[in-house]
C-alpha cells in the first residue's frame, strides 16, 4: 500500500493529466451521446418498427469488442483523441436511446389521455407530461452509458487517445503494478462518483414522478 502511494506521488503530475484526459474523453463522448440519442429515442417512439431495427443494429454494434472498433477507427479516422472519442460516442448511444425509448413508451396512457383532455398538443404533451415521467429511465440509461464509457476509455490508450489507460498499459508493460493501480484506482473512483451523482438525480426525478401520479 505504501509503495503504491509512493508511486502515486512520484507520478502525481502524470496521473492528474491522465485523469483530465480521461474525463475529457468520456465527457465529450457522453454529451454528444445524450445530444444524439435522446432525440432519436423520442423519435423512435413514434415508429415502433423503425425502433426495433435501430435498437437491433446498435445492440449488434455494442457487442463488437471495443478493441476491434478502435482498430477500425484507426484505419478510417487515424489515431489519437478524435477517433477514440468517436468510438466511445458510438458505444454510448444504445443505453441512452433504449432508456429514452422505454421511458417514454411506458408512460401511463391515462396520463396521456388526461393531457389530451386538457387540450395539450403533441409538443406540449412531450415537454410537460411524457418527458418528466420518463426522466428516471432516461437518466438510468445515461448512468449505464457513462459507467461503460469511463471503463472503455482506458482502451483509448491503444490508439494514442491518452487517458488513464496510458498508465495502466505502461504499468503492465514494465511489470510495475503500482503504476497499473495509479491508472486503475482513479478509473474506479470516477465510475463510483458518476454512479453516485446520477443515482441521486434519478431519485430526485422519481420523487417528481411520484407527486405527478399522486395528484
Amino acid at each position, binding site marked *: 500500500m505504501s509503495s503504491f502511494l509512493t508511486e502515486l506521488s512520484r507520478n502525481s503530475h502524470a496521473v492528474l493529466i491522465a485523469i483530465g484526459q480521461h474525463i475529457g474523453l468520456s465527457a465529450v463522448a457522453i454529451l454528444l451521446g445524450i445530444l444524439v440519442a435522446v432525440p432519436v429515442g423520442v423519435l423512435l417512439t413514434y415508429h415502433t418498427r423503425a425502433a426495433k431495427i435501430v435498437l437491433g443494429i446498435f445492440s449488434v454494434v455494442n457487442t463488437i469488442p471495443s478493441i476491434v472498433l478502435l*482498430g477500425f477507427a*484507426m*484505419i478510417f479516422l*487515424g*489515431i*489519437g483523441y478524435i477517433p477514440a472519442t468517436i468510438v466511445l460516442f458510438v458505444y454510448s448511444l444504445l443505453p441512452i436511446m433504449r432508456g429514452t425509448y422505454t421511458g417514454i413508451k411506458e408512460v401511463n396512457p391515462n396520463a396521456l389521455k388526461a393531457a389530451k383532455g386538457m387540450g395539450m398538443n403533441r409538443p406540449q404533451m412531450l415537454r410537460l407530461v411524457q418527458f418528466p415521467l420518463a426522466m428516471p429511465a432516461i437518466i438510468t440509461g445515461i448512468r449505464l452509458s457513462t459507467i461503460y464509457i469511463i471503463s472503455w476509455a482506458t482502451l483509448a*490508450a*491503444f*490508439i*494514442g487517445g*491518452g487517458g488513464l489507460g*496510458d498508465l495502466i*498499459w*505502461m*504499468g*503492465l*508493460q*514494465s511489470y*510495475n503494478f503500482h*503504476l497499473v493501480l495509479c491508472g486503475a484506482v482513479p478509473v474506479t473512483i470516477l465510475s463510483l462518483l458518476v454512479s453516485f451523482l446520477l443515482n441521486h438525480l434519478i431519485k430526485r426525478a422519481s420523487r417528481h414522478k411520484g407527486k405527478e401520479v399522486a395528484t
Partner: protein
Amino acid sequence: MKKKNTITLFLAMLLLLSMLSGCGKSKGVTVGSKQFTENILLGEIYAQLIEAKTDIPVTRKLNLGGTAVCHLAAQKGEIDMYFEYTGTAYNELLNHALEAGVTKEEILAVCQKELNENSQMTLFDPLGFNNTYAVAVKTSRLEELGVETLSDLSTISDQIKFGAGHAFYTRLHDGYNGLVDTYGMKFKETLKMDTSLLYEAAHTEDLDAIIVFTTDGLLKKYDLTCLVDDKTLFPPYEGAILCRNDVLERYPELRDELNTLAGKIDDETMQMLNYQVDIENRSVEEVAKEFLISNGYISITDQDNSKIYTEQEVLDIAYKEAGINSSQASEIEVELKTKDSVEVYEIEFDYDGYEYDYVINAKTGEILSKSREKEELPTT
C-alpha cells in the same frame, strides 16, 4: 501437524525437482529459447545445425519463458544452450546498469568474461545483428524529410509526430527521456499507443517517426528505415548463442559448429527471417532449414533421421503386432525415453486380462522388445 505435512510436501517437491533436473543431464544436448519468434527461430537453427553436423542427439525445449527462466533452466541443466542478447545479459544477468557511452565491444567483453566466471557459460561471438530500439521513418519519406540520423531528426523535431509503445516511456535512460535529453527532441506531438498499431500509423503517415525493434519483420512489410543512432543512445543488444561450459567439454566438436554463424546474420537478414515466420506464417522449422541449406551451412544430405514416429504411429505398430485394434486396448500408456542414447517409446496397454509391454525404436519403428503377462488382479 499441518506444518509438518507442509514441510514433508516441500521436501518431496524438492526431491522431485532435483530428480527432474537430473534427467536433463542425460546424453545429448538440449536447446532452449525465449518466448518470441526471433529467439525460437534461432534456437531451431542451432538445433538443426547440430543435428546435421554432429552425431549428438538434440532435444528442443523452445518457447520456454523470459530471460530469467531460460538462464535458470540452463544453470539447472534443464537446457544446455539458448540464444541471448548482450544488453540483456549485461543488465539482467550480470546486474550492470546500461549507461550511455559504453561501447558494444566493452559490453560484449564484460559479458563473455563474467558469464564464464559467474555462470560457467560461454557466450559465443555475436551473429552480427543488433536487436535494439530504433526510431524508424517510412523509407519513401526519408528524402522529403531529409533525415538519416537521429541528430538530423532533432533539427526538425518540432514538425514531427512521434509515437511509441507504452513501455518505451517507462524506461529511465534509454527510452523517451533519453531521446529528449540526448538529442534534444521537441516533438510536435507525442503519442503512446499499442506497438502493433504503430507500424500501420507510420504507414498511413498519421505518425512521422515511430519506435521499433531493429530486427522486426514488420519493418520489411511496411517498408520502414531505421535512423542511425549517431550518439549511441540505445544500448547494444547483439545476439549470440550461450552454452554451458561442461557441455562444450563433453562435446568438443560443438565449439566449431556454434561458431559457424558468428558475424553471418545482419539486421536485414534477421528481419527477413522474422518476416517469413511472422508475416508469411511459415513454420519455424521450415524457415530455419531453408536458411541453413540456402547459405550452405548444411547440405540436403545432412538432413538425417531427425524425424521420429508419433505416439499414434507406434501404438498402431504395437496393436498390429498384438493382433488387436485400437478400441480393444485399455489402460494405455506411452512414454518417450532415451535408452543408451537411442530414443525409444515404452508402451503399455491391457487387453483381455493380459498386460502388454512394448519397446519400440522411435526413429525406425522397430520393435525392440515385447512381453505379454497375465494381469494381476487386485487382492480384495
